[in-house]
């Protein structure tokens, strides 16, 4: 027997005086790295991130309350049209202000980009008029489109479509730098689900004006509003979340207090409880990393 056994090395080419099943003590711990890139979430940033979901849910609740009111004739469709027009102009104003401040920050507002913004404005104006007229002329068709289907099927269908809308919606808060030119398929699907849902709901209304008002409202709240929402900064987001949540609660109370408190509970759970659960669940996180992982190539 040799007086000094050489230390074990982690190589295969050398013949070592150790059996094949030899493992030095602690060799496993050395190469094993647990949770290496782990940044624990903290509570308040998660709450801020969850406001996007809360806003989306609150919008849907508001839309449903408005629909119920239109259906039992307690809300005049003309009021809704004027209200949504008002919201549209308010939203457009906010959009313009955001665009302006962003351009100031970017400080490269040469003639070309000014020209582009002007053209964009004309285009927006044209298309909004077009949509307005198209909706107006289509509303009699939309009213009778699924009139033959029984109400039960309509409720079930619209519930499914709204669920799809909630699941697939794009809750990412895109920073103003990345202007989402390339929209993901899921967010388009989500928008389509919401619009289809409002179309099938519209068939339960009795007159054309109500149908027009509802569809117009749905286009605003499910396509235009999310675009605006994504560009808002944190303090505005919080304010908006509060306004939307409170108004959805207030709108639901006269209809049924049970539903109103359910709405309130859902919104609170999403904003406050869910982040807390996520923060708590992090102690179970166990990510195992080691030399066997597929490396990520770094390219210039």
């Amino acid at each position: 027997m040799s007086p000094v056994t050489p230390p074990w090395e982690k190589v295969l080419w050398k013949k070592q005086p150790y059996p094949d099943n030899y493992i030095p003590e602690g060799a496993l711990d050395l190469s094993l790295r647990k949770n290496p890139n782990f940044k624990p979430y903290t509570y308040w940033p998660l709450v801020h991130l969850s406001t996007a979901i809360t806003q989306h849910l609150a919008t849907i609740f508001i839309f449903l309350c408005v629909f119920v009111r239109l259906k039992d004739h307690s809300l005049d469709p003309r009021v809704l049209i004027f209200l949504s027009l008002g919201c549209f102009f308010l939203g457009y104003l906010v959009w313009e202000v955001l665009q302006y401040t962003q351009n100031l920050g970017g400080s490269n507002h040469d003639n070309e980009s000014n020209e582009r913004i002007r053209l964009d404005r004309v285009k927006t104006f044209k298309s909004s008029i077009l949509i307005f007229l198209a909706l107006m002329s289509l509303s009699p068709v939309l009213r009778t489109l699924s009139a033959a289907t029984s109400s039960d099927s309509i409720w079930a269908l619209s519930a499914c479509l709204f669920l799809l809308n909630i699941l697939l919606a794009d809750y990412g808060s895109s920073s103003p730098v990345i202007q989402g030119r390339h929209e993901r398929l899921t967010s388009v699907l989500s928008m389509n689900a919401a619009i289809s849902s409002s179309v099938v709901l519209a068939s339960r209304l009795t007159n054309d004006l109500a149908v027009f008002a509802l569809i117009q409202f749905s286009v605003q709240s499910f396509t235009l509003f999310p675009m605006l929402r994504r560009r808002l900064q944190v303090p505005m987001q919080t304010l908006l979340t509060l306004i939307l949540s409170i108004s959805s609660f207030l709108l639901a109370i006269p209809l049924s207090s049970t539903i109103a408190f359910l709405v309130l509970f859902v919104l609170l759970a999403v904003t406050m409880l869910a982040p807390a659960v996520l923060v708590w669940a992090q102690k179970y996180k166990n990510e195992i990393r080691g030399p066997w992982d597929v490396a990520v190539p770094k390219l210039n």
Partner: protein
Amino acid sequence: MEPISIAMIADFFHPDVGGVENHIYMLSANLIRRGHKVIVITHSRPPDRVGIRWLLPALKVYYLPIVPIASGATLPNFFTFLPYLRTILIREHINLIHAHASLSSLGHEGILHSHLLGVRTVFTDHSLFGFEDAASILTNKLLAGTLRNVDAVICVSHTGRENTVLRGELFKQSDDHPSRLVVSSNVYVIPNAIVAERFQPGPLKPTDTITIVVLSRLAYRKGIDLLVATAPRVCAAFPNIKFLVGGDGPKLIDLLQMREKYLLQDRIELLGPVKHNDVRSVLIRGSIFINTSLTESFGISILEAACAGLYVVSTKVGGVPEILPEDMISFAEPDEDDVFRAISEAISIVSARKHDPFKAHERIKTFYDWAQIAERTENVYDTVMKSEQRELWDRILRTMQLGRYAGPIYTIILLVDCLFFLFLEWWMPRENMDFVTHHWDHRQFAAIARSRTNN
């Protein structure tokens, strides 16, 4: 060790080509040379590779009618293999099965069934897997279930062993340090080997042009993006460099585009797919071999290149740092700048003629040799054969420890398997079986061959 009868079980075998296939064949051939009886059990390759075939030297292969689902692997279904396996193991008087590859469900099933016949089990893992994606989580759980009751596990590198131990849950908590993990003593590391004679270095090249060889599947996992990024830089920095790229795959287009963009048609030669027989002839055209893999369990292609006398540049991933001494290989991080640095280093070493291909070949010959690998594997078999086999109750207890949900599921599979086995014992009694009585006797074969040629 006394000669025993061994059955190799794997989804992957000749006529398919690959690392695992070749490993099984070479190991079997060398075990036969050491006096054991070896058979291979795999699934059939319709239309013509079905039934029982003999391969040289005296290797009997059973091609079973089980349909593969994806890339040569069969569907894990836990029971359908048992009737075939029982018949084969009984009629061939098998003492030990050796299953290969963690994605080969035939191997897993073999380990599950063999204890019913008192046959011992060994498993070799050839690849590395992560722990993140759904596919890995699922296959790792399958592996853990199988390896619960296996008698020994062999891995091809130390990194591979760490990976397999974690995936297959082959550790327990230490008695004195509860936080420290102790690996079970039945996990071995036995590397692959190569047939060094097939990779003789070519004659010395008198020219100043240095050819860099890349032989790999052109896929993302092989790090072809790194190659695409560094090749133009190397060509720009060293006017005497040429590239020779062999292989096929989805990243071929990227290589072609790069070549066109930088007008390197005369510097970068693309060979397309290269047959395993032609590998040496491609390798000896160059003096530097580049491997840019992002994950590699063992890296047999690196060994082949080093054996053919090429200086190797490789990314430092997986088991690659273990296979060669540092003076035969330059390592790089998987980073464009570092790969470029390592290639420059290799070029300076080769152009200063500091790397002697023939000396490298002689050294590799002593590192990796199939005869030694077979001997080391035989030692594992010996330990397994001498150890006590686990009782069914012990197996049930160990299987139940797998987890709250996986434990009962695997236990049910284990028990149903026992019932199925009892049913087969009644339905196809052993007495009615065709036992194999005649074995391949090489001396007899040689005598007959000699007498025929003399007549």
